[in-house]
């Protein structure tokens, strides 16, 4: 099957799913409160977009997401480099890192509201925290596991520690670091939305809570669709970044998979 046909198949499956859902919702006479048909969701989506009702909410979520993602990734990268470089630091801090890894970060959201109050700060902090770990872990692993023969080469060339880090360890660990970024991007969306569930008055997460209060299920679905689109966009961005930065070392097989 050619790539064109496969793509067509994927879209056809989506269309069939939506049609089936529409048919079921109408045939079973389900209340729109339980499962609105796609047509109602689309109408709510269109209504919200056209009236500009969604706009500030989207803006708020995107802003929190970007701030949290940037802060979390920067900190994760920096700590990953530190821990990857220093075996002593790793031995000292590893038990704490592992422990903090298993704490469900979202469970800390109420605490952050106590500390930072309702609103954007708490959400940004949760988002940053949730992005921090995949990036730190992958950076640390990537940097600590550089090929011993290459390290010997750099030693032979008289490279300083800083040069070895910048010109060997980070580039060599880049595939892992970018895989961590891809995970972080998806988790960031979870962090932002859940943060808004708990402490937000604006944003897509807050809008879901509001639609629940108003018993407006089509609106809820419409917001869910928006969140999904946002997530897809972010993920595609991460994949494109990966493709671009790793272009020189991708084998044909990897290229095919990434297509």
């Amino acid at each position, binding site marked *: 099957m050619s790539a064109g046909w496969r793509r067509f198949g994927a879209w056809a499956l989506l269309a069939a799913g939506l049609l089936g859902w529409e048919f079921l919702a109408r045939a079973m006479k389900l209340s729109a409160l339980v499962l609105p048909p796609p047509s109602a969701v689309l109408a709510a989506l269109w209504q919200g977009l056209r009236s500009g009702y969604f706009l500030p909410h989207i803006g708020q979520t995107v802003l929190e997401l970007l701030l949290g993602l940037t802060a979390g990734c920067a900190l994760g990268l920096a700590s990953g480099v530190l821990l990857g470089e220093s075996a002593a630091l790793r031995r000292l801090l590893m038990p704490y890192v592992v422990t903090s890894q298993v704490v469900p970060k979202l469970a800390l959201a109420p605490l952050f509201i106590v500390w930072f109050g309702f609103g954007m700060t708490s959400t940004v902090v949760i988002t940053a925290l949730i992005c921090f770990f995949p990036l730190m872990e992958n950076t640390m692993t990537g940097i600590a596991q550089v*090929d011993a*023969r*290459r390290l*010997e*080469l750099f*030693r*032979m*060339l*008289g*490279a300083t520690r800083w*040069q070895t880090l910048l*010109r*060997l360890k980070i*580039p*060599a660990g*880049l595939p892992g670091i970018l895989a961590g970024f891809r995970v972080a991007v998806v988790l960031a969306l979870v962090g932002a939305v859940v943060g808004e569930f708990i402490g937000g008055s604006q944003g897509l997460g807050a809008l879901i809570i509001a639609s629940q209060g108003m018993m407006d299920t089509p609106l809820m679905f419409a917001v869910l669709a928006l969140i999904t689109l946002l997530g897809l966009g972010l993920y595609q961005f991460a994949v494109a970044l990966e493709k671009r930065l790793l272009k*020189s*070392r991708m*084998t044909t097989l990897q290229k095919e998979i990434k297509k």
Partner: protein
Amino acid sequence: MSFLDMEQVSFTYPGRPDVVQRVDWRIGQGQFHCLVGRSGCGKTTLLKLAAGLLQPSEGRITLHGAPLAPPGPQLGFVFQSPTLLEWRTVLDNVLLPLSLSHKPTSQEVARAQQLLALMGLSAGERHYPRHLSGGQQSRVAIARALVGEPAMLLLDEPFAALDAITREELQDDLLALCRLRQTTVFFVTHDIAEAVYLADRVAVMDCGRIRHDLQVELPRPRGRQIRYSPAFNALCAQLRAAMDGGAP
């Protein structure tokens, strides 16, 4: 005066018997010496000692009469595998030793390009290492070791993973490049014919000691016809007997 001078050099990893035991070896300016021996006899360790990557536990090593400087671009080193950086182009890989200390000048870039051209790789300088065959990657590794115009080149079984014909081509390339600038070479191998073809003098190492020392009095430049000459075969047989522990 000898160029590289090893006197009573020993090396021990803590808690283990000596890997290298009281080795004496001298390499004169511009000479090509090979070191042969079975796997695990301490060849690579001796080479790393000569490079300054390891410090001898006893004895001393001098280069031009002065103690060995810490590793740096003044020595060229070629490892068992090409160890190229797959995210840099071929040209950037060759320039790596220089670019660690400064931005390569246009002269140095030209030199790197010339080295690649001598290796028959000028068309591939903008490519990435994964586009190259194993033999081409080994060529890039040699060009990288030579780009800083080192006075001495150390090689650790650089051609072991290549097929016989590619290996012969690379041996000829290496000889030609080293003659060009009278580079002093210390070459580790386990291949008897390779050692005889390349070297002026061959050291046979066993259990950390140099057991035999064979002069190779074949004319230079050496070409393919030499590989099948009776003198060449006699030397190979002699070297083989030495490796078995017989009289050289």
